[in-house]
């Protein structure tokens, strides 16, 4: 195992244990306090930060620019898009409103000149080229806020997009995303999925190489969000020798004690790393101290 990543759930008010707890915690955390948590995690072995393109994470990156504890090689692993943000737009403006909003943002970003020239209604939709442009637009502000000493570890697609794509087998879109991330950013493309077995099968059926991508997916003792079952996910991982899987939800959304989570992971082969959320400096110290034993074992 090579990497221990800090997850952003606690920083943006996500909790799988209780939404009321998440609301209380997030009220206590501003970007400054979060930077202290991240610095503590770094001092106890965290090697990267994985985050969705939520506005709070942009503030965090900007605040991290002044942090002195970031060591060279600290990795950033953005996950895009921030799905809830788009659900909100759909609620406000409807499905057609969402499409228009995204196209409008692309136009305003100056990245799609054709849209501005031809007008949205007359535009010939090419989702593949739009996806590339969309990735650039979504990442731009986060990359410009990238603190010194950090590097881009991977660019990951959010689980909703990944899993929908796998359901409809939209291989061309995945291929385009992978090519673009590789060519434009010089890093591995990545996929977050809560349907690990199906995702791997889809990838193999399409003839894509799993070796060149990062896969972030839940692994925990109780099988929380491991679909279709814990056993099948474990068996699937065992057959992947590429070592490019990042385990997330290791605490099953806060349900499992840390020691049980670590003991379970000790028996899981082929993991590249772990992503875990922490909500306080004490929590960061305990969590990364325990997880570091996995790196060293």
């Amino acid at each position, binding site marked *: 195992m090579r990497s221990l990543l800090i997850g952003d759930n606690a920083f*943006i*008010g*996500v909790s*799988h*244990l*209780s*939404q*009321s707890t*998440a*609301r209380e915690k997030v*009220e206590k955390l501003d970007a400054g306090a979060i930077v202290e948590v991240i610095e503590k995690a770094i001092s106890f072995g965290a090697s990267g930060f994985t985050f969705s393109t939520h506005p709070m994470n942009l503030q965090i990156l900007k605040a991290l620019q002044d942090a002195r504890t970031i060591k060279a090689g600290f990795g950033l692993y953005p996950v895009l898009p921030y799905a*809830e943000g788009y659900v*909100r737009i*759909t*609620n*406000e*403006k*409807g*499905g*057609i*409103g969402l*499409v*228009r909003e995204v196209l409008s943002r692309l136009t305003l970003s100056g990245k799609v000149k054709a849209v501005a020239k031809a007008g*949205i*209604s007359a535009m*010939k*939709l*090419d*989702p593949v080229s739009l996806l590339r442009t969309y990735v650039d637009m979504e990442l731009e502000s986060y990359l410009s806020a990238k603190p010194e000493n950090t590097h881009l570890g991977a660019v990951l697609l959010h689980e*909703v997009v990944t*899993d*929908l794509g*796998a*359901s*409809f*087998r*939209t291989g061309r*879109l995945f291929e385009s995303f992978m090519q673009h991330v590789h060519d434009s950013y010089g890093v591995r493309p990545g996929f977050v999925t*809560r*349907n690990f077995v*199906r995702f791997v099968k889809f990838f193999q059926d399409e003839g894509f190489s799993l070796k060149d991508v990062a896969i972030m997916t839940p692994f925990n003792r*109780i*099988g*929380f*969000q*491991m*679909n*279709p*079952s*814990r056993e099948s996910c474990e068996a699937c991982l065992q057959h992947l020798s590429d070592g490019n899987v990042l385990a997330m939800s290791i605490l*099953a*959304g806060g*349900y499992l004690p840390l020691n049980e989570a670590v003991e379970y992971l000790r028996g899981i082969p082929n993991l590249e790393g772990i992503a875990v959320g922490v909500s306080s400096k004490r929590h960061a110290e305990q969590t990364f101290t325990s997880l570091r034993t996995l790196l060293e074992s």
Partner: protein
Amino acid sequence: MGILHSGIVNSLPDARIRAICEKETLLIRAARALLPKTINFYKDHVRMVQKEELDAVFITTPIITHVPLVVDLARADRDVSLFVEKPLAGSYEQAQMACDAVRSSRGVHMVGFQKRFSHVFQKAKQFIESGSLGNLMFFRAYSFSSDVLREGASWRFRRAGGGVLLDLAPHLLDILVWFFGDPVVLAATKRRLYSREVDDYVHAILSFETGLKGHMDACWSIPSFRLPEISIEVHGKNAMLVVTDDFVKIKSNKDGGTRSGGSQMYLKQSFDTCVPFLLADPEFTREDETFLSAVHKRTMTDPNFFNAAKVNDVIDRIENSASS
């Protein structure tokens, strides 16, 4: 919701999306470019069922269009099964029209009250029905979200969209009806916060046959609720129960409720959370599996149109009480 259900259904064994009906040309273009070529697109729903051999249709359109679509589809194909996103209709009268339309149908019908497929709400129902709470005294419940923090432009915010009562509250009302039966609406009030044509907040006092009384609030304009959340707190003479989307907790009143071991807590992780394919919460997958299984076996399922119509009845009575 159409994207969600189609993504799930397309991943379940023995199920495939064959056709999509959409009126917006831009959305059809985007979907056609993205989705497999085996999926056919239509602008006319009747033409779709006439041309395709469909086992079932998912209706995930604006609420006001649900019933006209149900009537058309049931008339065009007596064998087709229908799934309608919640609520069934914009009014009780409309809901009855939907029920009439499927009465002689050979297909099955279901409404998307997916909270009934959540293990925590199922456990809460078991506790209530077991009588372990003792005589039920009162309840308080809410359904909150941050969906509306400014005037919106979609159909939800037009008068016919029905506002928070028709859009957000139905899940909570369905669970209350499922738990306790049909309520009497004792009083209700509502108010607009951001929307010009619909209400953003509603409050109702309800009374059930058992004597249980309580109140419910629904508001879609609370910024701190990143995700929609339901909470129901029921106080019985022996114990109190709290159920949310995340957990169910029961606390004994014995020894003033302080006796250790007097409370039981079941988080959603306490249950088997695995599903064949996960695209939101697992209850959506379980809901779709239940519907497709009923379609396959041609057996009546729940919540069907007849039961879902009760929620429209309660909604109308709350609306009438709040308006009077």
